[in-house]
């Protein structure tokens, strides 16, 4: 079965769009974080797809993918910690409440 590269890219773009929509539209900070994670994974899927179709020679893409996954894990850990801290301060995780940096 020969699946063309474009299918993977379409899937990736779709995932990215879902993540972006979630990150932009939801009020809950955790959902926003989840949207960001989805956008991350769309990017990683792109990397692996390009590697699979031999557009890169070296195993660079695999290494990038593994780096990106581990960094995303660390990032989501930091993000969740921030959300908890924010929750302790504001007693809420509503993104619209967090505007103390307003100019």
């Amino acid at each position: 079965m020969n699946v063309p590269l474009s299918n993977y890219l379409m899937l990736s773009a779709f995932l990215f769009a879902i993540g972006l929509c979630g990150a932009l539209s939801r009020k809950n900070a955790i959902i926003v974080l989840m949207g960001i994670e989805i956008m991350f994974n769309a990017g990683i899927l792109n990397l692996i797809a390009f590697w699979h179709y031999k557009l890169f020679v070296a195993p660079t893409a695999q290494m990038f993918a593994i780096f990106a996954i581990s960094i995303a894990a660390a990032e989501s850990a930091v993000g969740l910690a921030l959300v908890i801290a924010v929750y302790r301060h504001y007693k809420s995780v509503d993104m619209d409440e967090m505007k103390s940096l307003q100019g």
Partner: protein
Amino acid sequence: MSELVRQQWLIPLFPLAAAAIQSLLKRPARKLSATICIGAMGISCVLTLRALFATFGFGRGGEHYEVERVIWNFTWFSFGNTSLSLGFILDPLTAGMAAMVAFVSFWIFVNATGYMSSDENFTRFFCFLSLFGASMLGLVVSNNLLLLFMCWELVGLCSYLLIGFWYFKPSAAAAMKKAFITTRVGDIGFFLGILLLYWQSGTLSLYTPEGTGALQQAGKLATLTGWWGLSMAGTIAFLLFIGAMGKSAQFPLHVWLPDAMEGPTPVSALIHAATMVAAGVFMVGRMYPLFTAQSHDWVMTFVMWIGCFTAVFSATIAVAQFDIKRVLAYSTCSQLGYMVMGLGAGSLVAGQFHLLTHAFFKALLFLGSGCVIIGTHHEQDMRKMGGLRKYMPITFWCYLIGTLALCGIPPFAGFFSKDEILLATYYRSPWAWGLGTFAAFLTAFYMTRQIFLVFFGPWRGGRPEAHPHSQLAEAHGELDVPHGEAHGGEVHLHAHAPHEIPWNMWLPLVVLSAFALFMGWLGTPWLGGNLFHHYLAPEEAVPQHSDFVLWLSIGVGLFGIVLGWLVYGRKPLQNALDDDPLALTTPVMFTVLNRKWYIDELYEVTIIHFTTAGATFFRLVDKLLVDGCLHAIAWIAWGLSQLFRWGGDELVINGGFDASCESVRLGGKVLAKLQSGRVQDYFRVLSLGFAILLLIYFFA
């Protein structure tokens, strides 16, 4: 000899140092203060006597026969190419005068310890006295007009301070101002003379060893043309004489001297009889080469007539005074007029000799009057005295000697000196001589009047019988009251009898009496030539002796005394409220004389009135014109500033600045809206930008 002149500065130094020390003493340090003052003057006295003996050989045979004077000049300071020098001089004129000043001052200081014994400002008084002694001695020994002028002004200052010593009395405060201002009028002339002399001769040193001193150039100055039809030397001499008129109380600047009697009596004796007022005469004598440089100038005639007029004028006023000190004050004016007349008649010797003898007997008379004032418990009105001969015998005899000396009765001192002046004047101008002789008659008359009023007749001041015992103790008890208020002509009837004075007051009288008795013999032509003439100015021509002048002068003196006895001695006043016998016979004349020819009133309505009117006028000018202009300028400036404030500053500058600030603020507000603080907003913008980039990428 030259070492001695280098030590001349020590003479004024000691009293000056004494004054400095005394100014630091506290009030209770009375004995210390008096000791310092008298001691310093004693040292100066010894120094002046040493200088005096050294000058005996000057100008005639002996060791220093070629020496006329020794001088010592030194540079005070230099500026640019010019240097200002000061200097000291030792010559017969200076030595004689300095010895007299120091000696008389010494004894007056001794007397003052008694007179001021109950005054609470004793130390201040003696401090001023020391300062006065220092300035007067400095004036005498200076070889430089600048130094002389400084001391001259210092002397004036001391006079001011001492006249107003009881400054809480309004009359004393007025008198001190009057003395200061009147002499200042004369000092303007003096200062102009000094400036003119400096301008013309280029130096203020009187003598220099090189012969370039101001007085050594007198001959040269006499050839230059000055002002008012005078030679330059005559002009300078005239201006200098104006200063002497102020200081020596010559008409019309004599008005301050009688008022100066507000000061304590030792001050009157010291300053207003013996020494300070003599400074003017001394200065004329010192600058005599300028006066005599050209014989046909009218300056000498002017000097003589001023002196002559003052002598007669003041003598007439003295006849009608009741204050014991005022009589003596006008007598001093009159005698100073004599000295000036002698100088103007061309006899330096006669003028200076009378200065010296007069200093002794006038100091004696003033101290005597001080003793009378103390003895009668601060009574100065002669009508309330009388009969003091019995109560104060020592004072009486000393006073009598002084009086006879002043009247010019031989063999007392005044006879010889006055006779010399009259003789010199006789050959110069018979009219001036006649007036001078008349003044001699008046002098004898008013002094006799004073003697009879004060010392003869009944005691009119109180009731001496009421307290026959322990008068002295009570009197001293009474004196412990601060007595400043007790002065000044108010009526103070004391129940106490007059008393004789303590030894420190009569001892000076006795010493000065000896000089009043014997000093005249220095100037007599009978003892192998006139010693004083020989000593002071051997080159001056001796006026030819005239028996007529001699006998007439004795005659008028005796006539004055006899007339005085006829009027006042035969029928003495019985009551203090009795009229003066002279006032009964010639009431108008007596009143005029008693009011001093209305000179003070004349000055009041002329000079003072004029000055006041001028001051008022200029005050109006100041108010209207000057202040008006100033206010107008201020209003204009204020209006302009208002215009600029509202039109320029507020509208343009502030307005523009505010507008620009406002626009920046508005812009900031708009832009601050962008920074909402919400992460998702930023994210949205980011995404939008990303989308736009993508669109550009695909479709462009």
